[in-house]
Every structure is written in structure tokens, then in C-alpha cells.
């Protein structure tokens, strides 16, 4: 165990003395994280949360329903969500949308109320009261989500209004059909219609949406909490393959045979080298985590869980580095394959882009990378998750590491890599 530690510690010190390696291990992920933070607006504060949705309303309706819709848009319930401006001219409102100033313009046409509220005669005949007027939602295609919110609000409102109309229609026509009311009860009908309409009677909502905001994440998600681990994990692959390259370099340069003629067994040497790579990778990740925490005020989450995730992520990444080394013949081959794998895993594992827009098969393939599992875990922790929330990524990384180590050791033995 002592020999293992000595070899590992020596390799750790060598790695951190190598200025070229430091560029990849620390400087590159740090600068790329900084760059991603800059372009995403993280440092200018333009990426957090959301701004109120700007919307203009034109109410040409002189009736009650038009006024109710304007009131709804200006209600306290929607005050945080919407920034509402009421203007007179539909053309001006539409121009605001055309010029990308607002998410949508809502135009309530003249006669909208009249076209909905049935009179007593309509109750009797079951006929609609006349021309159908429609509210226009003039949507900005550049802001589909915001415009979608406006459309949903207007649609819910019109549905509610329509429900009230149908409710009156059905109530009276059923009373006529069942003989509860007759043509002779016109006075009573008018009284009932006036009563229901003056009370602005609303049917009771039978399905209630029990709205809950997730408590564990009652804060803005920091985009850098996705980008920083993405870059750190990508360049971790460089460190692990660099460890393998160092192992083969020792063999080529003759320092490995020297070690093996000392009273040190080959498995101790291999174990020490692997342990050194593991220590280097862990130190690299921790330096990046601590420095980004201090410099970018980035909250990585529960420290114990972060540490555990770092350890298993490095373990899995070392497994990949070892596998490359087991199959390679020269240090150059390890370097080339390691760089290629670093970039491939970077793009497959979501280090550059969130994988949510990618097809399901792509997301499945990404699971072979430590980047995808590691990112999954780090994102959960940054969102307020605990150790219990990252059990799946922890287990996946652990299994990945064990399998890769097992395959690598078999190949090492077959190829006699650790023989003088």
C-alpha cells in the first residue's frame, strides 16, 4: 500500500509540474467555462429568471366581457407574469408585435359581448344571438413560449365565457323541454336571465389544479452550474489518458523496467500509476470546483455529495484512460486516442450542449460516457439535490469504472504490458 501511495504521489507531483499538461487540465476548462459564462450572459446577469411578458391589448368591445378580459390581464394574479399596455388602435398594437416590441397583441372586437350573451328569445329558440365575433391574438413568432402563454390566457377566458353561455342555454332549454318553464313564464325567464347575468354567475370549477412549486429548487438555476462541470469532465478525460501515456512512456524510456527490477511487483507499479492518475484527476476536478466556486460564485451543491460524485466520476474516467492504454502500443497512440475520446465524449456527453434537444437514441448512446452521468449528478446537486438524488449516476459511474478496469486488466495481462 505504501509503494502504491509513493508511486501515485510522485505521478501527481509530476503531472502538476508539467506546464503543458496544466494547460489542458486547468487552464482550458477554466477559460472555456469563462467563455461560456460570458456568452450566456451569466456574468452580465441577463440569463437569470424571466422578464414579464410584454403584451398590448386593444378593447373595441363596449360590453362587459371585453372589460372583464382587460381586467383579467391587469389583475394582481398576472401582475408578475405580464407587462400589459392598453391602447386604442389595433394597427398600432400589431405594429408593436411586428417590430418585436411585445410578445402578442390582443384585440377584442367591437360587439364581442353582444355576440355571446344570449337574450331571452335565444333561450327559447336555442339559436345563437347573431354574428360570431372573435378575439384576435396577434402572436410574435420570435417569442413562441410567451405568445403561447397569452394565447392560453385568452383561450381559457373565452372557454369560460362560452361555458357560461352554454350553461344558460342548456339550463333554460332543459327547463323548457321538461316542462318546468313554458312560453307563458316569460316574466320569470327574464328575471332568471337577469339574475344569472347580473351575478356574472360562474359555474364552479370541478377540477382544481393543486399547484406546487418544487421546494428544493426555490432559486434560479445557474447556467454555469451546467457548463462548468461539463468542461471539467471533458478535460478530465485528457488527464486520464495522459496518465496512460505516461505509463507507456516509462516503458519506452526504460524507467518502468528499472522500477520492476526493484522489490516492487508489477501490480504494485500498475496500481500506483493508476492511483496517481486517479489522484491527479481528483485534484484537477476539485481545483476547478473550488476555483469556480470562489471566482464565479458558483454553488455546486452539497459538498459531501459533490466530493463523492467527483471520486466516482474520476474512477470511471480513469477506467476509460486505462482501456485506451491497454490497447495502445505507443504513448503517441494513447495521446491521439485520448484526445479524440475527450472530444467525442464531450459532445456525446453533453459538455457542449444540453442533450435535451437530441433524439432519444442519442441520449441513450451518451450513457456510455462518464460525462453524461457526471453532468446529470452535478446538475441535480446544483439544483439543490442531495446524496439520495444522485444514487443513479453514482452507481452508473461506479459500474462503468469496475467494468472498464476489469477489461483493461485482462488486456494488460494478455499483452504483457507490465513485463520487462
Amino acid at each position, binding site marked *: 500500500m505504501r509503494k502504491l501511495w509513493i508511486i501515485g504521489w510522485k505521478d501527481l507531483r509530476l503531472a502538476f509540474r508539467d506546464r*503543458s499538461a496544466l494547460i*489542458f487540465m486547468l487552464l482550458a476548462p477554466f477559460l472555456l467555462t469563462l467563455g461560456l459564462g460570458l456568452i450566456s450572459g451569466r456574468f452580465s446577469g441577463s440569463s437569470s429568471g424571466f422578464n414579464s411578458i410584454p403584451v398590448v391589448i386593444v378593447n373595441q368591445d363596449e360590453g362587459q366581457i371585453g372589460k372583464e378580459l382587460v381586467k383579467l390581464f391587469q389583475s394582481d394574479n398576472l401582475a408578475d407574469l405580464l407587462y400589459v399596455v392598453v391602447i386604442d388602435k389595433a394597427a398600432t398594437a400589431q405594429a408593436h408585435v411586428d417590430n418585436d416590441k411585445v410578445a402578442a397583441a390582443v384585440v377584442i372586437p367591437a360587439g364581442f359581448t353582444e355576440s355571446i350573451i344570449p337574450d331571452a328569445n335565444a333561450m327559447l329558440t336555442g339559436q345563437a344571438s347573431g354574428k360570431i365575433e372573435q378575439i384576435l391574438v396577434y402572436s410574435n413568432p*420570435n417569442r413562441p413560449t410567451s405568445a403561447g402563454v397569452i394565447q*392560453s390566457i385568452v383561450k381559457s377566458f373565452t*372557454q369560460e365565457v362560452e361555458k357560461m353561455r*352554454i350553461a344558460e342555454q342548456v339550463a333554460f332549454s*332543459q327547463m323548457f323541454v321538461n316542462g318546468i318553464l313554458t312560453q307563458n313564464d316569460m316574466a320569470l325567464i327574464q328575471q332568471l336571465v337577469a339574475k344569472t347575468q347580473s351575478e356574472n354567475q360562474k359555474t364552479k*370549477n370541478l377540477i382544481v389544479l*393543486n399547484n406546487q412549486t418544487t421546494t428544493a429548487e426555490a432559486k434560479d438555476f445557474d447556467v454555469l452550474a451546467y457548463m462548468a462541470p461539463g468542461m471539467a469532465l471533458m478535460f478530465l478525460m485528457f488527464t486520464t489518458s495522459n496518465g496512460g501515456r505516461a505509463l507507456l512512456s516509462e516503458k519506452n524510456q526504460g524507467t518502468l523496467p528499472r522500477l520492476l527490477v526493484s522489490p516492487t511487483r508489477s501490480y504494485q507499479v500498475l496500481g500506483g500509476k493508476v492511483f496517481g492518475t486517479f489522484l491527479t484527476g481528483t485534484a484537477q476536478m476539485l481545483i476547478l470546483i473550488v476555483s469556480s466556486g470562489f471566482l464565479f460564485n458558483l454553488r455546486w451543491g452539497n459538498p459531501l455529495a459533490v466530493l463523492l460524485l467527483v471520486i466516482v466520476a474520476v474512477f470511471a474516467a480513469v477506467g476509460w484512460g486505462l482501456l485506451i492504454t491497454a490497447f495502445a502500443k505507443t504513448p503517441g497512440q494513447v495521446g491521439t*486516442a485520448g484526445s479524440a475520446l475527450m472530444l467525442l465524449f464531450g459532445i456525446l456527453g453533453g459538455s457542449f450542449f444540453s442533450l435535451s434537444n437530441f433524439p432519444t437514441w442519442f441520449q441513450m448512446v451518451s450513457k456510455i460516457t462518464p460525462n453524461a452521468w457526471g453532468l446529470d449528478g452535478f446538475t441535480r446537486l446544483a439544483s439543490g439535490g442531495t446524496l439520495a438524488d444522485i444514487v443513479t449516476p453514482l452507481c452508473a459511474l461506479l459500474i462503468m469504472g469496475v467494468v472498464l478496469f476489469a477489461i483493461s486488466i485482462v488486456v494488460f495481462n494478455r499483452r504483457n504490458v507490465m513485463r520487462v
Partner: protein
Amino acid sequence: MKKILTIVLKDTIIRFSSLSEWLFFLILPIIFTIVLAGGTGAPKDTRIILAVTDLAESPLSAQLINELENSDVVRPDVKELEKAEDDLKSRKVSTMLVIPEDFSLENLSSRELRIDFYQLPNSLDAIASEQAVQEVISKISSSVEIAQNSVALAEQVHPFSSERDRQAYFNTAMKQAQEEIKNAPQRMKVQLAATKAEIDYDPQANSSAGQLITWVFIPLIGISGMFAFERQKGTLRRVLVTPTVKSTYLIGTILGQVFWALVQMALLISFGILVMKLHWGQNIPALIVIMISSALSAAALGVMLGAFVKTEGQATGLSIMIGMVMALLGGCWYPIELFPKIVGTITKILPTRWAMQGLLDLVLRGQGMAAVLPEAGVLLAFAAVFLIIGIWRFKYE
């Protein structure tokens, strides 16, 4: 001229002596181009994903899910409760709807039902989903609500003689309500404005141009590694004791790498034309101008870097790092229009920004020589400045 060609040939042999060079020269750039073209564009279905867990599995819950499927705002993704919770926790979705076991038409007729709706805080998508779900539940409960209202109004005028009569009245009222709802007129119309797109963006074109610049700039900046290698090994001194002047060596080295960069660009552009069906070939002379000026600026940057680095390892690490950072900030990975304004302005100091702009002028905006000349001019100016500094500070030993 013969010496220059000999140096070019020598560098070519060294560079392509290993098959692995093709990995970085062509294979990885193509993989990156394809993946980014597919993953960074707007998905075909732009609706917000709503995780739905159906614990009831009743006709009413099926109706609810069906109505959500028809929504313009949300796309229901029905899954197990555990998976839905996991997706919400890991932010794969912004909202989750849990339909309870008692969610049936029978229960709806007799009492109020509650559906649990979970959402992430400060998420516009979550708010949009909530509005869409409200709209749908209001719709599916309408007929029952109307029938109940109808029964209540009738009772005010004439009480029912029995519960059976009351139920029969409720049933016919609900049937009529369903029919009326089905035939109800649309009270809202949506018209899409002709708002000009915020950004010129096409995932295929942006990916093709962006990856071309990324993968061509990195090896060109890597010229610095060649100088460092030759200095370290002492072969540069050997060359210079032959009747070869320094400028011949420098020109030969730069031209060789620029030549292969142009070949690489041509191959990637051919891939873009043949496989991705991009309109790269609309103005060939303009394309050649921007390709050459981009390659020269990157090669000159490599020469400048070569004057400062000490070892080949340093040069390799720095060229990859600088190449990636410049590609990122130059808009090769994400559209520059999405950057904060101040950052967008600052990126003008990077040649990648101008190269990207020039290539997009051609492949995305369909412009011609007049449009790319300013970009080409800036790139050549970069090349001149880098080259002057590089030659001025260049160490041959």
C-alpha cells in the same frame, strides 16, 4: 520555389505519416458537424414537454391526456411517477402533472377533484404549461359543471320529486352540454405576425461553417508546435545551415499548412453541399476569398504563438485551447446574436468572429463578393499584424 515546395512536401509527409491525422482532419469535424446540426436547431415539435403520470387510467384521464396532446403549448409525456419526479428534479422537464387515482367521470359528477401540478420556480415554460393545463381541465370539466348548474337552476323553479328524476335531468343536461360544447364557435383566432427573425440561424449552415472554422483554425494555430518541435530537436538550425534563408523556411512552413487547411475546408464544404444540401457554391470566388483570408489569419496566429512558446507540448495545448476558446467566442458554436451585446462587440477582436461572419454571409444569407470583402479585409489585417509580431519575435534557436 523548389525549396518552398520541398518544405511543404516534408511537412505533409510528417503530418500524414500517421493514419490518426485523418481522425482530426476529417472524421471528427464531420461527426461534430452532423451532431451539432441535429442537436442545436429548433426541434420539430417546439411544444413544452409536460411529464404526466396517470394513476387513474380512466376514460376521463385518457380524455385529459388526449386534450393535452391537442394543445399548441404543451406536449404530454406520460411516464411512471418515479421517472416523472426524476425528470423534474434533474430539470429535464419544467412541469409535472399527476392525475390521481380517483380521477373519473363518476367522481367528477359528485365532488371536486384535485390534480397535482408541480413546477420549477422562475420558469416561463412552467408558467406556460400551467396556463395550458388550466385551459384543458376547464374544457373537460365543462359539461359536468354545466349539467350541475342546470340542475341547480331547475331546482330553484321546481324541486325534483325524486333523486332518480334529478339524475335523469342531470344526464340529459350533460348530453346537451356536450353537444353544445362540441358545436361551440371559436371565440379566439391566432394570427402569426410577420416579425423579422431575431437571428439569422440555420442549424445546418451554422454547424457546417462553425465546425469548419474550429477544426481548421486549431491545426493552423498548431504551426507554433512545428516551430517549437524543430527548435527543441535542433532540426531548425540544421535547415538554416543549408543555403536556405529564414524567410524561405517560414513561407514554406506556412504555405504548406495553409494549403492543407484549404484542402480540409474544401472537403468539409463538399460534405456540406453533398450530404447536408447547403448552398455553399453560390459564389465560388467569394468563398475562395474568405477561405484564404481565414486560413492566412489563423496560420499567422500560429506563427506569432510559435515565437513565444518553449516546447511542442505547450504549443499543442495552447493551440487547441486558443482555437476552442476563439471558436466559442467567435460564434462558431452558438449564434453570436444570442450573446450579450457587450460580449458580441468584444468578440470583434477575434478572427474567428470575422471568418464565421464571412462564411455565414455566403452559406446562410446567400450574399456575394461585396458582402465578404470587409470580413476578408479584416482577416488579412489580422494576418498582417500576427505575422509582423511573429517574425519580429521569432527565435530560430
